[in-house]
C-alpha cells in the first residue's frame, strides 16, 4: 500500500487552523467563538499526531492527550462563564458585552 506524505496532513491542519482563526474573528456568538478555538486546538492536534508519526516519536501523542484534557477543562469553565454572562446580560453577542474598556 502506498503512503500519504506527512505534508498533506500538515497542510490540512494549517488550513483548519486558519479557518479556526477566521471563525474566531468572524463569529459573534460567544459559544461559536469557543467552538472556533476548539477547532484550532484540533488542527494543532492533527499536526502533532502527524509529526509524531513522521518521526516515530510517541511524545507527540502524549501532547495531544494533554491538549485534549486541557481543552475539556477549558470548555467546562468557559461554558460556565457563558451561562453566567447569558444570565446577567441576556445576550450571547460578544459585541454587546463591551463594558470593560477605556
Amino acid at each position, binding site marked *: 500500500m502506498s503512503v500519504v506524505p506527512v505534508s498533506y496532513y500538515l497542510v490540512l491542519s494549517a488550513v483548519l487552523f486558519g479557518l479556526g482563526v477566521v471563525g474566531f474573528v468572524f463569529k459573534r456568538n460567544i459559544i*461559536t467563538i469557543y467552538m472556533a478555538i476548539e477547532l484550532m486546538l484540533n488542527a494543532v492536534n492533527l499536526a502533532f499526531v502527524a509529526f509524531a508519526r513522521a518521526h516515530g516519536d510517541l*511524545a507527540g501523542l502524549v501532547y495531544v492527550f494533554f491538549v485534549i*484534557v486541557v481543552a475539556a477543562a477549558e470548555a467546562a469553565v468557559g461554558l*460556565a462563564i*457563558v451561562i453566567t454572562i447569558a444570565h446577567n446580560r441576556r445576550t450571547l453577542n460578544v459585541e454587546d458585552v463591551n463594558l470593560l474598556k477605556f
Partner: protein
Amino acid sequence: MSIPFILFFICAAAAVLGAVLLIVAREPIHSALALILVMMSLAVLYLLLGAEFIAAVQVIVYAGAVMVLFVFVIMLLNAGVEVRTNYSKIAKYVGVPLGFFLLLEVAYWMWGSAVGTTVANGAGAVNADAVSTVDLSNLLFRDYLFPFEATSILVLIAIVGALVLAKKGE
C-alpha cells in the same frame, strides 16, 4: 490511487467542509454539528496515522463530552440565530482578511517545510504497526507522570470553578 489516499481526501474534504460550515452557519447548533463533523473526520485521520488510542480519545472526549456540553448549553440558553453586528470595523476589514492570509501563509510554509518527509510505513493500514496503547501509557505514566498529575489538578480546579460560576449564575 490507493485506499489510504481516498480515505484521506474524503476525510480532509469533510473536515474542511465542517470548518467552513462552522463559520458560515448562523445557528449555533449547526456550527456545533459542523465541528463534530470535523472532529469525527480528524479521528479517522488519526486512525490513518495509526494513532488508535488518540482517535478513540478524540471521539470520546471531544465529540462525546465537550461537544455534548456545547450542545447542552446551546439548548439550555436556547441560543438562536446569531446577529451579525459589526461594531468592530477593524475585525471586519482587517481581522478576517488577515485570518485568511495567515491560513495561506502557514499552509505554504507547512508544505515547504514538510515536503519529502513521509510517514514511515504503511499509514494506510489502520491496524498495521498501529501505536500500541501500552507504549503510550508507559510514556504517559512514567516520563510524563508529573505533567499528567498537574493536568489532573487542573481539571479538578476547572470542575470547582465551573460549579462556582454556575451557582452564581442562578
